[in-house]
């Protein structure tokens, strides 16, 4: 079986301004990335990247974005990502940048990576927390996600045949 091979780029929107989260929506992110590619690589690069380019997943609370493009042109995409400087939506624009976390061959590997990454973040937060209330809060949320993990343990374990990542 022959299929089109894609690359999925998992990135994080980092912004100083908390209000920026308002404009994290798939249209705005997509436009900003396209714009950056156009600036950096010109029309040819934009056309290459925009074959099957989409925002597959987006979470405004955590600022996670999953982008998809063809395997042939993912280098162009990755190299243009640092040039995204702002997001614009509803006539508001906020400065921000994209932090590439992971590049994967399937959505699944990206999801797995995201789980690990988030868990690591929580642990880091736990180590760095200052007061008792925060500590409790983080512990609670950690426990809440580990609880679901136990429920779906069998399912989680079955996926140790990780598809190769880039």
């Amino acid at each position, binding site marked *: 079986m022959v299929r089109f091979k894609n690359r999925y780029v998992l990135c994080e929107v980092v912004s100083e301004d908390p209000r920026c989260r308002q404009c994290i929506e798939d249209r705005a992110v997509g436009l900003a990335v396209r714009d950056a590619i156009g600036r950096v690589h010109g029309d040819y690069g934009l056309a290459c990247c925009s074959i099957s380019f989409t925002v597959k997943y987006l979470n405004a609370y955590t600022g996670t974005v999953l982008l998809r493009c063809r395997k042939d042109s993912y280098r162009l995409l990755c190299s243009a990502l640092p040039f995204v400087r702002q997001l614009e939506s509803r006539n508001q624009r906020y400065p921000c940048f994209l932090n590439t976390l992971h590049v994967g061959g399937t959505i699944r590997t990206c999801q797995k990576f995201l789980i690990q990454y988030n868990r690591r973040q*929580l642990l880091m937060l736990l180590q760095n927390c200052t007061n008792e209330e925060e500590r409790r809060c983080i512990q609670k949320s950690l426990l809440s996600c580990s609880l679901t993990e136990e429920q779906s343990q069998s399912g*989680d374990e079955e996926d140790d045949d990780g598809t190769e990542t880039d």
Partner: protein
Amino acid sequence: KGQNRGERGRGRGGWQGGCQSVSEEMPKYITVSTFAQARAAEINAMLKAVAQKSSNSLVFQTLPRHMRRRAMSHNIKRLPRRLQEVARKEAEKAVHQKKEQSKTKCRKARRRHINLVAEFNRRQRKNIWLETHIWHAKRFHMVKKWGYCLGNSPTEKSYRACYRAMTEHCLLQDLSYYCCLELTGRENELLKQLARICSIDTGLTFEEACCLSGRFEGSLNLYRADHYPEDMLGPVTFLWKPRDGSENRQLWIWVHPALKQDILRELKAIFQCSEPEEIYIPEPVATSIQEEKRMDVVLTLGKKRKKEDKEGEKAVPVKKIIGDGTRDPFQSYSWISQTTGIVISDKTMEILRYRLIGPLSHSVLTETLKAASLQTEMADSETELNNWWVENCKDSEKVSLHQRQSAIFELLEGISSPSEMPPGTILGLTVGDPRVNLPKKKTKAVPDFEKYQGRDMHQSWSCAQWKPLSDHTDDPDNDKVRQLYLEGVPVDCAHSFIWDQDICKNVTENKISEQDLNHMRAQLLVPGSHLDLGPCESKIPILLVQQPGKMAGEDRPGWGSGWDIYLPKGWGMAFWIPFIYRGVRVGGLQEALKHSEYQRTPHTPNDFPDSQAGMQFAKELEATLLEKFKRRPPAKRANYVKLGTLSPFICPWGQLTKNWEVRMKASGEFVPSSPHRERCATEGHSFCYPKEEVVKEASPKTGEAEETMEITSSEGALKTEDVTGTQDFGERDETMTTNGFIVLRSEKLLMQLSAWCYPTAGRDRRVRLISRLGQKDMTEDIFLPILMSYPRALVWVNLSLLRKGNPELHAMICIPTEDDLLHLSKDKLFCGPQEPKHRDIFKHKVQKLKEEKKKKKKKENMKALEGDPPSVPDKETTEEHEDLILGLWSDALPDVTSHCSRTLLGYVTRGDFSLAAGCGEALGFVSLTGLLYMLHKQPADKKGLVLLRTPASLQYRFARLNIEV
């Protein structure tokens, strides 16, 4: 926020729908707790997404290759333990698709003869197996129909080969599934009642002199007693036993199994045979003797059977079922009338019947069968083998009869085609065991050219029809052949012992088994030499009946003629294999259908829409076609509403005839002037007297009106007549509640119609025809009475396409407009007009319904979530609308005749490219009223031209309509 989380928490959809819009009340600052909670929620969503199996592959397919093992799909324990649970669930899901492993025994045990026979007997209990079942099951697609297991068509490619066999050589078919009903009683008693269920109008009756003598087999259509022309029961063939001096006559009525119950019930009713005769129990004595014999054979062959050793003497080998396996042995299958002493017995599966079709079928017969040798001494005084024959041979009169019969049988070889014999000729015979002279190799039986050199031996039908008699040399054999050809088989030769039940039973029970025969063959001194059984050879009484083939129409006379051979039960395979060894080809139900299609004869039960079985068949066909239609995705189906096909799966005969009747009345096209009227009324009654009686009985009003008409003067007659006419129609509506329509089978009328269907001008063909048939011209005063007397009748017609086109099942027969005919005469390559596309008026309805359903489902889901049970009336409404299918007309049918741009005349019941005619041919029914209307309107040189349109196409094709009588 909680709401957002809830949204995300919906499993897979949660993460895909993660592209949420940001709500306005988004917090403007980061706190640790929200941050942590957001991460935790995402982890949850991701975990759920990852845990879900992405594709619909099986569990072991998700394993990397190096972890796969060979039998993983069968044996769950081969999987890693963590996956076993999931795999078990999957296996349970797929278990109903898998074939059940029911057998506890090993294959060797299952295939052991005793167990095999027991298993076969068990499987025969539900559906009757023919004696050739096993042979067929290995080579045919089997179908379960009418309570039998029948071969549908060969698994090999043989469509054309079977046709060739029919035309040039010989096609064999096992017709043992036809049922034989035996009537015994005094001749005049039988005839008196039988006259009620058939009519002289349709051709033969049971009283036909040549059939009554037992010389010929006849075929006719049965109706409910005194109901002709309504309430058709079905077509039958019948044979009388030749007179043998005794008072009682025997009559065999052969019926199709689909019609059997109806006909049997009617026969029982008219003869008042309700009393079951004393219960006939197959004596266990005879069978046990045979079993013992078989045991002996087994024991002498060496004690191989462990079973017998184990279970001792008590183990009784299972006996093979011969005859009807589904019968209850304690139920009676014959009925006697108290008053007249007439006995009706159901002899289903008691007599086997094979059909040989093709010009060389009698060379196959003469090569396979050898007349029995005379025998005056018993072979073995203990057995009953052949004792009837020995007794027979002592009577010199019977011996001479047998010699005459066998002489005639040998002469058959000299006749080039069975169509040369008079139709339905019966020849009785007693033959020796056909297994004895089995050829070593399969050979093709061809007639002996040397022996009858004077005659030109043609193998094709076209030449076989006419042969100058003076051509023959004066060889004495040829003289005899000529005599046979001219005079047919004499009456006394039709006698056969197969009519005698006791002899049949004797023959069946004393058959030498295949095993014994092979054993004897093995002990021959010279291997492969002829086995001479001497006095032990069984003698089997058989009956040969000629099948006339194509009799109606002008082309291919005698096509498809052949011989039917009737055998006592139990001898099926013994005759079947020798036939196969003579190079015949075997056909199934499909081949029989094609045979009748090329012969242009109606096939049972497809082409009898007015009988119960025909209606049942049509309903079943509709169900299967609809099922097939529904299986396709809606975008890939034909949209029959757009194509203007109202009912693609069933022919609405009742609606068609009714619409034509209404149409005629409304248009007033055929309302004649007053002097015509009177005559037509009287003639109309004379045309169909039984009908008129029915009407009279039903309506005293009509009678009164007629009386008044007689009194009043001719000028005033018009009005009253009109009234009676309408009343007539009204009454008929009441009388014809059962079917609503009849099929015209009166030979006289059909002849008339057939003559009218030919073009009058042009090649001046019709003048010849009229002079030949002695028919009248088509004028108003002749066809009006027909119209009046048969307002709702169908006519069986055949159509052959002029140019391109291949008619299909349920194709529509339409009337061409004048423009079409004009176009046709101008343009030689004109294929036919196109139907404009219709609008699908049901599309919106279907879509709306779909949406509603979706909504309802959603609602129900919500309710289920909330914990409410779904309300009952909701479901009912959804089920009501379930039958709305995109592409099918879902309302009650509108006027079927005028729905399309060309007026509808009738429907095709069978149509295909005919290999025999070399063009597309179709058989079907048209409305009589419509046909007369069309013929009346059409110009003289274009008479009988119609348009054909298949249900899934917009293209009309020209075809010529014919009625063959």
